[in-house]
């Protein structure tokens, strides 16, 4: 790589049946940065993450991820990142250990390293004592911690976190953020996250981008965004940038079902 941008996005666009979910966005993220991607519901955050992580094919535009084009060098690009999805994505019928084992094998982590790594990660997220329990008996916070551990199983360069702390209590949120920052510092992992908790972005992010109606409306540090909008808190800056009108989350049947399920699991 000739520059130290680990993620480069140029003119990225995604259209669903004539509807522009993501409209010509561009941004760069430097290696080792914690990058917050903020926006109201339905603004295009998750769609962007899905394109970055090879789950969706962009309508147009270019992505470079750790030097790879996710469309052409799928496997190299996939090996470069770990991801924690917006909604739970563990197998409830497997144990915590088995879930990590499953993903370790998918990512082709060699057996001996895999064993060590799983132990280390489970201890790190404080689930080692519960490693042989089925995930269906876990609380929402434990599941999230396990998912974060899973995201690290293959030593990724980039970690994507789509609302990693949604629906968690402040204790668990603090905990999760201390893991993430720790990993960011120790292993120089680049973190790309979305959230609706402005104080998380304010506290943790080196850089913030605000997306609304599929377009990036502002970029910069928390201080810069506040200065730009002449507001004193990031929440006010966010509201000034995106307006105070309530958005309809454009969730289909499945998303709504997931939300209900998540609410039950809490």
């Amino acid at each position, binding site marked *: 790589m000739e520059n130290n941008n680990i993620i480069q996005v140029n003119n990225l666009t995604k259209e669903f049946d004539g509807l522009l979910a993501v409209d010509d966005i561009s941004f760069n993220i430097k290696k080792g940065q914690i990058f917050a991607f903020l926006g109201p519901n339905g603004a295009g955050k998750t769609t962007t993450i899905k394109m970055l992580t090879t789950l969706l094919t962009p309508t147009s535009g270019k992505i470079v991820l750790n030097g790879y084009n996710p469309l052409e060098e799928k496997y190299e690009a996939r090996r470069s990142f770990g991801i924690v999805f917006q909604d739970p994505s563990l197998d409830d019928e497997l144990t915590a250990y088995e879930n990590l084992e499953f993903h370790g094998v998918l*990512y082709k982590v060699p057996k001996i390293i895999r064993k060590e790594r799983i132990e280390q990660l489970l201890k790190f997220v404080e689930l080692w004592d519960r490693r042989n329990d089925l995930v269906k008996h876990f609380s929402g916070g434990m599941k999230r911690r396990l998912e974060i551990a899973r995201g690290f199983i293959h030593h990724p360069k980039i970690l994507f976190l789509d609302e990693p702390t949604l629906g968690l209590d402040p204790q668990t949120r603090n905990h999760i953020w201390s893991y993430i920052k720790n990993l960011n510092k120790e292993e120089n992992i680049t973190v790309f996250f979305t959230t609706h908790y402005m104080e998380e972005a304010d506290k943790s992010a080196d850089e913030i981008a605000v997306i609304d109606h599929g377009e990036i409306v502002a970029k910069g540090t928390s201080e810069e965004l506040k200065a730009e909008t002449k507001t004193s808190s990031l929440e006010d800056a966010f509201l000034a940038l995106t307006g105070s009108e309530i958005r309809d989350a454009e969730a289909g049947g*499945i998303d709504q079902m997931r939300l209900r399920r998540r609410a039950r699991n809490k």
Partner: protein
Amino acid sequence: MNTIYILWLRQLKRYFRSKPRIIGSLGQPLLFLVALGYGFGPVFQKAGEGNYIEFLAPGIISMSILFTAMFSGIEVIWDRQFGFLKATLVAPVSRFEIMIGKTIGGATVAIFQGIVVLLISFIAGFRIYNTAYLLITFLFMFLVAFLFAALGMTIASVLEDFQGFQLISNFLIMPLFFLSGALFPITGLPKIIGFVAKVNPLSYGIDGIRNSLIGISNFGFFTDFTVLFLVIVVLTAIGSYLFSKIQI
């Protein structure tokens, strides 16, 4: 190879951990065997067709393989709804491997189910003609199981949720079973029914299993094997294409 193995293992673990599901899925074949077997037995005998339990048992074994295999294929919809599929699809493995791993996993579970029903049918009075043919029985069990697990996966690839599931159950799985030669001989049937039974791949699976267990056959091993094999090749091709097109 490791990818296929771990996907297979997951499928097995999930199956053997849900004891109610295993027991529940044995109820239906048992009921069919007892009610139909003893109920229609005398009529069958009078019509000069011989022992109905013997004729029926291979059909019921195939039925339980069909149902289990189809359902484990369709389980992909669960994986999709509860997010697990996404986590699998962002991993650096090919979709083809994922598809094959899950299909073999579903097929293994279905074969197990078939063997349990075979054991149950012994209790109901079923007897094998020649145990040397049991290996051929297992081969046909595998073919039937693989075929319908692949079909289930193929269908699940294009379904987003369980809305369409009832439709598939009533308009695909049930007709596949009832119009297959599982319950009655497919010779001398009214034209349309006979035709449907002959294009139904399950008929060939049942024929192979029945032939290997009690030595009665319409098509012969070679035809049975060839038809099943070709359908598997075509289905796997279609299935892996559709599976590779999944966008979440």
